[in-house]
Structures are given as C-alpha cells and as structure tokens.
C-alpha cells in the first residue's frame, strides 16, 4: 500500500463528518494519482493522452456522488480505485475501444503532476451548456468565479439552501449527461 493512502482514508472520514476543507484536500491529493492511472489506461488503449483530464473529472464526479457507497470502516483506496477503473473502462468504451484495464492501472501508478497546474478538460465544460440556466449559473459562480455559497446566494437573490440544491442538481445532471454520451 502506498504511503498516504491511510491519510486519504482519514481525510474522507473527516469530509463525511462535515469538514469541507478536508474534502478539498483529499480530492486534490488523489487527483494526480487518478490522472496517472488514466494516462496509463489511455496509453494502453492507444488513445491520445490529452483526454486524461476528461476521465479524471468523470472519476471525481462519480467519487463525489457515490461517496455513500464507501464503508467508513474500510480503507478508501480500494473503493476509490474501483470507481476509477470503472470510469476509465467506460470512457475507453465510449471512444470505441474494448479494452481491459489492468487491475493495477491505478493502484501502481506514481503520482503525476499535470503538465500545467491548470489542466483543463472539454467534456464537462461542453455539457455545462446543456444544464438548465439557473443550475449553470450557480455552478459557474462557484467553479469559475470561486464564489462561496453565500456570495452566490446573494448574487442571484436565492436562499443558500436553494443554491445548494441547484449546485447538487447541476453535478448530478452533469454526471447523468456524461453517462448518456
């Protein structure tokens, strides 16, 4: 087991108990590992590596929306890598490849920093345009303008609860659209 995986488990437990910054740190910590696994899978399938960021974002969305299937008493890594493999296989199939993802594509990878810190992906950004306007505005306010829930609520004259609901719906909507592709 890689050093740091215990730390991931701890961070996820904190996140579930309501600690947003622990959650932020966890997602930041796993992203380079997910990226390296995605690149490895793409390379194996003979696909251009520049799609890796799309896959990373899909994995992150799935991790977020399926957190409740993680058993808090179990280590996080096997669960995380299972989701990552599943999403990688999906993504490669969508691109017309029937590939077997090596079980260790994720578990064995060396964390990799993105070419630039600002690795960007197109899929999520494109699908963003198909969301209902209010959900899109809320998501963009928080994602792109890094506004807080409160600021976003003030900006759109919404309650904070309504912003939270719109945000969550936007994320579920994006994930559903990614799956439909």
């Amino acid at each position: 087991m890689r050093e740091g995986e215990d730390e991931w488990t701890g961070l996820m437990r904190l996140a579930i108990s309501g600690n947003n910054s622990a959650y932020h740190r966890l997602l930041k910590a796993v992203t380079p590992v997910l990226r390296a696994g995605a690149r490895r899978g793409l390379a194996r399938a003979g696909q251009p590596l520049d799609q890796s960021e799309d896959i990373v974002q899909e994995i992150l969305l799935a991790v977020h929306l399926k957190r409740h299937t993680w058993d808090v008493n179990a280590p996080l890594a096997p669960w995380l890598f299972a989701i990552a493999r599943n999403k990688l296989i999906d993504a490669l199939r969508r691109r017309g490849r029937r590939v077997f993802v090596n079980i260790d594509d994720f578990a064995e990878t060396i964390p990799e920093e993105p070419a630039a810190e600002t690795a960007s992906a197109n899929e999520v950004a494109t699908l963003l345009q198909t969301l209902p306007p209010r959900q899109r505005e809320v998501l963009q306010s928080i994602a792109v303008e890094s506004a807080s829930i409160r600021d976003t609520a003030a900006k759109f004259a919404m309650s904070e609860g309504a912003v939270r609901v719109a945000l969550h719906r936007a994320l579920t909507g994006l994930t559903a659209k990614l799956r439909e592709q």
Partner: protein
Amino acid sequence: METEQLIRTLAADNRYRARPVGFILTLALLAAAPVSFLMFMTALGVRPDVMTAMHNPFFDLKFVVTLALAISAIIVALHLSRPEASMKGWGWLLLIPVGIIAAGIGSEMMLPQRLPAMTRLIGQNSRICMTAIPLLSLPLLAGALVGLRHGAPARPALAGAIAGLISAGLAATLYASHCTDDSPLFVVTWYSIATAMVTAAGALIGSKVLRF
C-alpha cells in the same frame, strides 16, 4: 473546466448527504410491493383452502424457499452495490434456498405419496406459475433496480440479475399462496424457470440502467 475548479465545486457540495443504498432499496421495494399485491389479489387471490393447506409442511416450505431467495438476494445486492465488491465469499448465500428446496425434495421422497413423482412435478398450474411469477415480479423488479441505481455496482448486469432474484423471490412468495401445487418437485421446476426468466430480464435491464 479546470480540474481544480471542479474540485472546489465538489468541496462546496460536501454538505450533501445521500441516503444509504439499503434505505433507498427498502423504500423502493415497499413502494412496489402494494402494486404487485394488488395485481395478485385482483387476478389470482389466495387459494380457498389456505387454512387447511397451512398444516401441510410442503405448503409452508414454499414460503421458506421463496423468502430465503429474496432475503439472500437482498443481502448480496447490497454488498454488490459497492464498487469494489465482488461475489467472492458472498455467492454461497444464494445457495441457501437451493439447499432448502433440495432438503424438501429429499423429505418428500421419503414419505409415502399418492401420486407418482412425475405427476407431482408436472402439477396442475405450471402455465399460470410461469406467467404469474414474472408478471408479479415486474413492479418489484423496477423497485429493486431503482434502489440499486443508488449504489455503484461494478458489474451492472450481475447486480441486475440479483435484482431479478429479489423480485422473483418476493413475487413467488405471493404466488405460492395461490398455487395448489405444493410438491417441492413442482417448485424446483416451474418456480425456477419463472425465476430464471426474471433474472435474465434483470440482467438485461441492469446492464443498461445500473451503470453509474
């Protein structure tokens, strides 16, 4: 969108708490059960001699088998709703109903019978059995699939098949109270065929709708 932006957004949504899969599965099955029950009561109904039939252990055994199937399938389904789970170490649970029916066949063989084994196996209701169980399963199958969609099964077709077993087990429990064929030989033949149909349907639908 930059990944860093997505991460920030997900963290902002951290407060959202999804219900456990078991909770949603229970709700979905509880919502579907009255539909199947109503279908059963309007089209078939409980057999008229049910009070006497209850004294026949082979009548009662039908419920033990079908409920054992439904319960073990629910346990396996909840396990499989986690992405890192596999059937390893859990598949044996599905053999419990098989073992029960095998024991039933064994005991029936040892008792004196009025009718020959082949007649008991063929019974009177095979056609209704094979129609009623799949039809009564449909609302329950929909419920089971809705419940499992809330999970993250790594193998959607397999999870769908297990959803099929859950719904067939519950539908067969209803049907068993209508059917006058109580021989375990009848049950093992026709109930199994009906269950296999529902399981296949569950696998097919599951492979489409249980991807996460």
